[in-house]
């Protein structure tokens, strides 16, 4: 079976991703969390969304903003059989994020480190933006050591 990544570099990759990406459900910040009891850091830590309380790999923030716009403004609904609630909306946004990330990856403009091309996103679509300062970025470096 193909090996997907060298486990020695996994922590570095997860840290970068947690710093750069957002939760595809809520758009919130991600952090690293110790999930299992292994003494080997690579094997016990996962990217986590504290707000959703779930292991979450995350998406690029630009993808999340586009997906949110698509669901809110274009009325996209992948789950017509479910009651329309905040949870269903988040599931829809996450679904659009998956589709967009898949497409961008296959077009070759998205890789493990983010977008490979400069983006000129539609400002109307991006809507609200989050401004992070140095303190925020430092906070995001911290690894939560709480276990489930």
């Amino acid at each position, binding site marked *: 079976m193909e090996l*997907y990544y060298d486990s020695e570099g996994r922590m570095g990759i997860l840290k970068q991703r947690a710093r750069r990406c957002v939760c595809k459900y809520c758009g919130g910040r991600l952090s690293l969390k110790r999930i299992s009891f292994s003494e080997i850091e690579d094997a016990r830590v996962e990217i986590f969304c504290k707000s959703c309380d779930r292991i979450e790999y995350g998406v690029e923030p630009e993808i999340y903003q586009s997906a949110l716009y698509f669901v809110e403004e274009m009325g996209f609904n992948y789950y017509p059989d479910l009651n329309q609630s905040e949870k269903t909306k988040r599931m829809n946004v996450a679904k659009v994020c998956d589709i967009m990330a898949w497409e961008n990856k296959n077009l070759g403009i998205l890789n493990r480190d983010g977008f490979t091309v400069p983006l000129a996103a539609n400002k109307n679509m991006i809507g609200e933006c989050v401004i992070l300062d140095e303190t925020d970025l430092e906070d995001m470096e911290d690894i939560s050591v709480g276990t489930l």
Partner: protein
Amino acid sequence: MEQKTVIEMKQLNCKIGKQYLLKEINWTIADGEHWILFGLNGSGKTTLMSILAGYQQQTSGELKVFGEAYSAENLIRNRRKIGLVSSSYFDRCYRDESVLEIVLSGVLGTLGLDFDLTDADVKRAKQLLGRLGLAEKINQSYGTMSKGERECVLIARALLAEPEILILDEPCSGLDVLARDNMLHTAEQLAESRETTMIYVTHYMEEILPCFEHAVLLRQGRIYQKGWSQTVFTEAVMCDFLQSAVQVHRDEKGRITLSMAERKSFELEAR
């Protein structure tokens, strides 16, 4: 031809504080063998299996999987080769994660996802979930599923990586009679159709299928006896192991059942 050893434990201990969860475990498993791990509640079965699968670590002693001890370099690589199906363990890790994401994490040997998952992985995960009757539930969150459905999700997660060792940790626990029968049938099919080394963990004698030719009895964190199932599951051994008078029956297919020779009863005082 001599079989290759895939798992080797020597004097393995696991303790929390001063309490031993596992003590002096010595157990060798050869490639392609099918084992039953039998023990009562709290005997350390899940702890032993999560250590074996690399999701937890022993306190002391030696564990070699595929000929090497777990290390930072090989842990995730080796975890991919071991399919752990244990709701006792994964219920602690997963709750709101979607079914598809959980199954896909099996390819990686992690609990979360990675960028390099391929379309083939996703297609195969969906196929597996379809075969297990969960095609309509791939977007559902783990915590909202029934016990039986969660077991099937974990089986799909384990099988996706085409593991060399498959561990089924009490897969029938909490299932209704039909789901239990289906699960046993699935376990039997897996044991007969694949060359995978399998460990089936249970505390019910009725789940001991004839295709599991080896057995280990675990009591209070120690191995009480191990060997061929036919020699382990005898009346004399089981009476001593359970410290209770029991009768062991085998049907014509080799299925084992156990009945209490004398039943302890507890009288409740009328208030």
